[in-house]
């Protein structure tokens, strides 16, 4: 591979990044070739020592996707970053993906429970208050005071659990971004 082929491949594979960034990246490699050549090296040798331009392009792309997921948090951006990291061939993601899905499932479960608690709590409060106005006479075997306090308690618990879930979700997001960062910095020879 000569200089032209290297640069062309790199440029083509960087597609999708902002043009300004691509130009800046290409500048580095042009400079690298220029100085190498001025020191009497051959284009082919310089290209070989640099490594596969396709892999180099992937490193930049994963990096930029992770930055995007960090500065612009959204599930979509995180998934994009994860998939591009997987495309780079980090075998450990297969090991990590299982636990990751389990954690997501647990979080969804926690959200479900907290919503259930709030709904149940509010139901208990209003249900009790509205009993005198209702045609039906339901007796759960609780005193109205007990039922209302129980309702308030459940609602508070639900809200707390919901906030805890939100916090854990944020933590998971940040942790994942950090993990991705750590991974792209693993350099294989």
């Amino acid at each position, binding site marked *: 591979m000569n200089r032209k082929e290297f640069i062309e491949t790199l440029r083509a594979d960087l597609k999708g990044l902002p043009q300004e960034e691509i130009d800046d*990246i290409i*500048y*580095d*490699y042009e*400079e*690298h070739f*220029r*100085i*190498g050549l*001025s020191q009497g090296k051959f284009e082919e040798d310089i290209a070989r*020592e*640099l*490594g*596969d*331009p396709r*892999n*180099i392009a992937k*490193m*930049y792309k994963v*990096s930029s996707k992770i*930055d995007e997921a960090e500065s612009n948090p959204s599930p979509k951006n995180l998934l994009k970053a994860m998939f591009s990291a997987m495309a780079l061939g980090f075998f450990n993601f297969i090991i990590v993906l299982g636990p990751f899905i389990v954690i997501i499932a647990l979080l969804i479960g926690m959200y479900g429970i907290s919503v259930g608690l709030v709904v149940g709590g509010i139901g208990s409060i209003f249900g009790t208050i509205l009993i005198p106005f209702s045609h039906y006479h339901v007796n759960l075997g609780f005193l109205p005071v007990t039922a209302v306090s129980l309702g308030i308690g459940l609602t508070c618990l639900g809200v707390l659990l919901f906030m805890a879930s939100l916090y854990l979700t944020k933590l998971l997001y940040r942790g994942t971004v950090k993990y991705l960062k*750590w991974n792209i*910095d*693993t*350099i*294989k*020879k």
Partner: protein
Amino acid sequence: MNIQFKKGVLELCVLSMLLERDYYGYELVEHISKHIDISEGTIYPLLRRLKTDGFVETYLEESQEGPPRKYYTITEEGKKACDELIFEWNHFVQGVNTIIKGDRHE
């Protein structure tokens, strides 16, 4: 060499070189690859990330031959990160050396 190098090591190499003086990319790559067996192309993505993280800054300087060269200079934040990395590295190497030398028979 069939090892996976963790970023820390390369980052440490780049930052500690920049502690002495400013370098342009080629010099950094050449010096590091003289001592460590890596794909040279991986240094530039690392430099870019160090820049995004605020550990280094770049500036262009005229050279006698051809277009201006991109120089890398370390920031205060970078110096702090480098100190930490050097400390961690020494601690790690000391630990490994202790084990290799077989102090366990004491």
